């Protein structure tokens, strides 16, 4: 079984390369479907493969940057990426993350950091999950009552309130189909940025639901636009982590080959999934993340890894199923001469 192992030139360890491809693949599927980087999902997997943890973050970020690139290209073709919105949001994200990092440094000085950050993370994730499921049940009720709009039944419509804020300059985002004050996306991304900087995460996990619930983006556009931001921050992150010597470049390439296939499947699957389906699966992923953090807080790292990896596998299989069933259906219809689009 010698050929199954690959020598990592920098750390000098031998790693089971199909494992790396598999991690890349599943994170590719999930990232392409939900529009997030997914760094939090990779670390436990790498840990199990015996990958040196000193290189985990850098390797992970570089692979995420490459993968987001693949997904962004694909989403862009679907018209899922609102570049204008993405660039406007970059402004808020940048300032926000800086503020968030400053808060963390302040907390570090007064010696409160570790568990505060972790518990804030748990609360934020719980709120997101609550929001997603509240939205889901409201939409189900609306549908039962026959209250269906142009794009199907809607759940939470907080963004309608948000859109009433009319501070100039007003901006129209064509792809997302919204017109609002320029300050809305900037303030929302600022808020997400602060939280992301504070928690030390990429922020896709926060930005995706924020785009949907606060800015009023259709779910698909939220996914695509968020990936665009993940790509830009990922490339820069990869550069700086490499400068610090924290990257195993060969592993990045191996993971990327898996991610390339996964990202296509995840992204194309969004075509066959309803917006609400994406949101609910996202909510489940968020809960899995939350549970794993709580377990880690109580020093049950093994159990946490099991929870994360289990959730990833299930969601990944579910997404693949959507993709293959949807694609098969489309091809059948095409053959029958009644193409759907």
């Amino acid at each position, binding site marked *: 079984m010698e050929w199954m192992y690959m020598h990592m030139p920098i750390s000098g360890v031998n790693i089971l390369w199909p494992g790396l491809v598999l991690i890349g693949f599943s994170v590719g599927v999930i990232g392409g479907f939900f529009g997030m980087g997914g760094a939090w999902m990779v670390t436990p997997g790498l840990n199990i493969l015996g990958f040196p943890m000193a290189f985990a973050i850098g390797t992970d970020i570089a692979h995420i940057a490459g993968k987001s690139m693949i997904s962004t290209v694909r989403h862009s073709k679907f018209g899922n990426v609102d570049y204008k919105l993405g660039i406007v949001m970059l402004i808020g994200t940048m300032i926000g993350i800086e503020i968030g990092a400053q808060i963390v440094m302040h907390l570090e000085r007064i010696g409160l950091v570790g568990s505060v950050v972790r518990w804030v993370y748990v609360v934020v994730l719980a709120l997101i999950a609550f929001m997603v499921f509240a939205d889901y049940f409201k939409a189900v009720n609306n549908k039962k009552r026959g209250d269906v709009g142009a794009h*199907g039944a*809607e759940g939470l419509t907080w963004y309608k309130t948000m859109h009433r804020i009319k501070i100039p300059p007003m901006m129209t985002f064509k792809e997302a189909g919204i017109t609002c004050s320029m300050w809305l996306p900037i303030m929302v991304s600022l808020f997400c940025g602060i939280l992301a900087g504070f928690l030390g995460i990429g922020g896709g996990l926060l930005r995706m639901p924020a785009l949907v619930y606060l800015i009023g983006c259709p779910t698909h556009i939220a996914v695509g636009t968020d990936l665009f931001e993940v790509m830009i921050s990922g490339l820069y992150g990869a550069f700086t982590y490499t400068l610090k010597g924290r990257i195993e*470049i060969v592993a990045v390439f191996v993971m990327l080959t898996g991610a390339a296939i996964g990202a296509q499947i995840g992204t194309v699957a969004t075509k066959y999934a309803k917006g609400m389906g994406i949101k609910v699966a996202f909510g489940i992923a968020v809960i899995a993340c939350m549970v794993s953090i709580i377990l880690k807080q109580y020093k049950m790292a093994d159990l946490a890894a099991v929870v994360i990896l289990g959730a990833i596998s299930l969601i990944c299989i579910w997404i693949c199923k959507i993709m293959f069933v949807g694609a098969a259906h489309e091809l059948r219809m095409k053959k029958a001469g009644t193409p759907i689009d």
Partner: protein
Amino acid sequence: MRKRLAKLGGFIALVQVVVPSMLLAAGPKAADLVVVADTRVLAPGLNRYFADLYNTDILVFAVWAVVLTALMGSVLGVLMDKIMVSTGLNLSKRKIIEH
């Protein structure tokens, strides 16, 4: 063309301003790690080349890593795209259905 270049320049400038702070978001802060790759045990080849570069000039290595990651991302993206298109699926349109 010039207009496009100007746009691109503006974008690059924006990225340079925006991105350094985004790095913090990319993960917990990491201290410098001093690792020397053991090139004595590597045969000449790709692994040896990267390990040598890692040992000798980390800056060139970092530029290389980013360029190659981006390059590989786009090459694999285009390649997989071709494969996807060849399946005959319609990949240019989709309806927005929320529920």
